[in-house]
């Protein structure tokens, strides 16, 4: 479609922030911009001031030469590109024959770089991504001073036209994976992408309804670390969460600070996370099915404690435990949505009034409340998956309560088979444990010291095996 000043002015007719300035620099030129998206100082410095004393320019090429002070001056190839530039805050300069050039006068609105609240670390960099794609790319490039750091710029969303940057390191990332990801992004047909999590849904080839299949991070150091292993980082404008792929289940067990701590401590804490997650999902189910079917397994003195505590409870063990878990989930959900000051009092109300009063009133047994709470705390060692694990916990508890150990075994196996069957971007979800890739176990649950990690993980497709360049 032909670029035309008339079309642009028709599209924004009646909009208060639509500004038109006629410039007489020999011939007649028109500069248009969106006031709300442009920085007045930049418009003045890069467009108006350089052109104020020009009197003999006859063409846009001459105008372009006069705008040497502007860093981003270009000729949009078509009308859509011109509109995209215009909506992003560029100033368009038209000549009388509907040719135009665009000058970068974007305003910088957004928060400054700060430590992300979701991934605080004791040690290590404290910079976090922000909502601006340009700043985010800068944060990556600051750490990757190599020409092999490549960015593929895309835009998604019929109305939002959100900028997407697919970043990878050429020579490390597998080109087929890059092409596959780009292809999937290009195939996205949607009105708008407001956050990277929208895009994650489209990128998930398995259409998983339970587990996350695309990683996300708020920290540039983590993103670069993952890119150095052969992964892609996908930055979505307007989102501080940068997507990384391919993604492994074991990444859920890893925390941002793991690489800045002693590897032995990291190994221990990863095992602790793993055990607590497994226990969180299985503990309530085991407690219920042991009470309903297999109380012989419970040590005698513990059984007596349970009997003492449960004698007056009006519910069956299954109902009691489901109640505890649901109340816990409600509390967690409410806590998330409350301002932090109210959140603290909500936790107190939840813990003391509900928990203690329920036990005192004989509605819930103390061991059930304790196991529910223990299981709940365990879930938070894997903060990204708390919700889904909580759902699984409820399901396994229900099945365990109904069918006993048989149910626990069947449901656990079903979850395992489901996890094992997932594979995307040529990467099995449970790698490096299943399929077993011994070389990759150096940084899975256990971690060897960083200097000894000489090879890139095999689980992630890559073009260069050695980490030594």
């Amino acid at each position, binding site marked *: 479609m032909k670029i035309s000043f008339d079309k642009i002015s028709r599209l924004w007719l009646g909009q208060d922030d639509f500004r038109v300035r006629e410039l007489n620099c020999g011939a007649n030129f028109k500069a248009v911009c969106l006031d709300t998206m442009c920085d007045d100082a930049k418009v003045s410095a890069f467009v108006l001031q350089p052109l104020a004393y020009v009197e003999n320019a006859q063409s846009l090429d001459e105008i372009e030469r006069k705008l040497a002070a502007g860093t981003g001056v270009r000729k949009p190839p078509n009308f859509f590109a011109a509109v995209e530039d215009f909506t992003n805050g560029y100033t368009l300069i038209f000549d009388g024959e509907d040719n135009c050039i665009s000058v970068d006068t974007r305003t910088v609105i957004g928060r400054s770089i700060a430590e992300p609240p979701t991934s605080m670390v004791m040690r290590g960099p404290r910079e976090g991504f922000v909502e601006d794609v340009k700043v985010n790319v800068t944060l990556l490039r600051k750490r990757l001073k190599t020409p092999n750091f490549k960015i593929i710029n895309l835009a998604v969303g019929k109305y939002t036209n959100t900028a997407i940057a697919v970043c990878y390191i050429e020579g490390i990332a597998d080109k087929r994976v890059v092409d596959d990801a780009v292809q999937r992004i290009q195939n996205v047909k949607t009105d708008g992408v407001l956050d990277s999590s929208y895009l994650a849904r489209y990128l998930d080839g398995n259409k998983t309804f339970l587990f996350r299949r695309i990683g996300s991070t708020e920290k540039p150091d983590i993103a670069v670390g993952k890119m150095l292993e052969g992964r892609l980082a996908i930055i979505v404008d307007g989102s501080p969460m940068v997507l990384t792929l391919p993604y492994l289940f074991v990444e859920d067990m890893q925390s941002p600070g793991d690489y800045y701590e002693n590897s032995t401590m990291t190994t221990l804490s990863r095992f602790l996370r793993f055990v607590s997650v497994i226990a969180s999902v299985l503990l309530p189910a085991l407690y219920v099915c042991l009470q309903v079917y297999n109380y012989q397994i419970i*040590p005698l003195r513990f059984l007596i404690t349970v009997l003492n505590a449960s004698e007056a409870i009006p519910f069956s063990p299954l109902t009691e435990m489901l109640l505890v878990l649901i109340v816990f989930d409600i509390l967690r959900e409410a806590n998330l949505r409350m301002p932090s000051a109210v959140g603290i009092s909500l936790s107190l109300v939840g813990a003391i009034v509900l928990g203690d009063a329920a036990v005192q009133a004989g509605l819930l047994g103390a061991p059930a409340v304790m196991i529910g709470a223990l299981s709940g705390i365990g879930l938070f060692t894997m903060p990204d998956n708390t919700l889904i694990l909580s759902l699984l916990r409820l399901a396994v508890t229900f099945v365990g309560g109904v069918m006993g150990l048989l149910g*626990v075994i069947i449901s656990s*196996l079903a979850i395992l*088979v489901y996890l094992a069957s997932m594979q995307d971007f040529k990467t099995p979800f449970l790698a490096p444990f*299943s399929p*077993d890739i011994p070389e990759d176990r150096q940084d899975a649950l256990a971690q060897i010291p960083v200097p000894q990690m000489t090879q890139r993980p095999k689980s992630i497709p890559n073009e260069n095996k050695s980490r030594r360049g």
Partner: protein
Amino acid sequence: MKNRVSIDQLALMYLLLVTGGKFLTLPSLLAGDVGHDSWLSVLFSFVWDGVCLCFLLWAIKINDKSKLDIAAILDKSLSKPVSKALMALFFVIFVLRINILLSGCYKMFSVTFDVSTNWLVYVLPIAALAFFAVSRGFNSIARASQIVFGLIVLAVIALFVSPLAEVDFGELLPIGEAGWGKILLNSYTRSFWFSDYIFMYFVLDGIKIKKHVFAPMLVSFGVGAALCILLNGVFVALFGYLAPDFDLAMSKIGVFSAASTANGRWDWLTLSVWLISVFVKVIVFIFCAYKCVEKIVGAHFVKFNWIAAGVVLLTLSLPMFVSTRTLLDTVIKWGVIPFTLVQYLLPLLMPLLTKTAQRKTEVKSE
């Protein structure tokens, strides 16, 4: 593609299949037959299994080039009718094995774990799990086994280590008291519980071979066989003359780990972990039975076929009409001879059959 499996995964899965299911009712049956020499009976069964396994692995190695599936090999080397008859025989074996395994588990759950329910409701969730796994592909079953195998092996070891303090292996003396002929014959009559390698026939076309074929498979076979022989030895030594009365070996063998009054039956938790291997075995055999249906009708199911699954599911209702005792005393007792065909004769012929089939395929393509 979904049914591809590496030789390492196959080896681990085979280990689970060897140990899964052999500790339900088999040890007491063997103890009833040959007394304290039951471990010898198991040993002989495994020796013969080992020989057949080697031949089958040889066939797998030969087949690496052509990646023919079992139906193609049998069709080309023996003719289609014979191939279909053999598939039908396989189907019967798998169905019987699944039913015997499930009835053992049913007994375990109802008697030991106090879960009272009817057969149908018990079988349905297990079948649902198995068909879910089949629909996700053999690859996912293999991968899931890879995750749980370490845990299961530890559980098995924990189960027979705990009563070791109570066990006097002198009870197994004198060796061969029941008579060598009887022990050997018993190995044959109880062969239904062995030759777990038969599941490999149905993944022949999907086996990825890296370097070694024999080493990983034989190691896992050796470990599995050693665990089974040891566990039978521990069982008979522990229960002595009473062994034939303890028909759920695994649930009883760990009782002494919980001898102290303060502890509960923690051994039942390890027992539950071991039960995962029985379920893996059931899933694998259901996969094979499903594949048998596919081969018998001569189709290739690209997507999960509900009709084939329905046929397999129907056969799981067998114990509702025929008691396990009748199955053991009649069907399996008389079925041992035809079963020998696919359990012990076919593996020995497999290298030859595979080569013949390959030659015919090459001639055809030329």
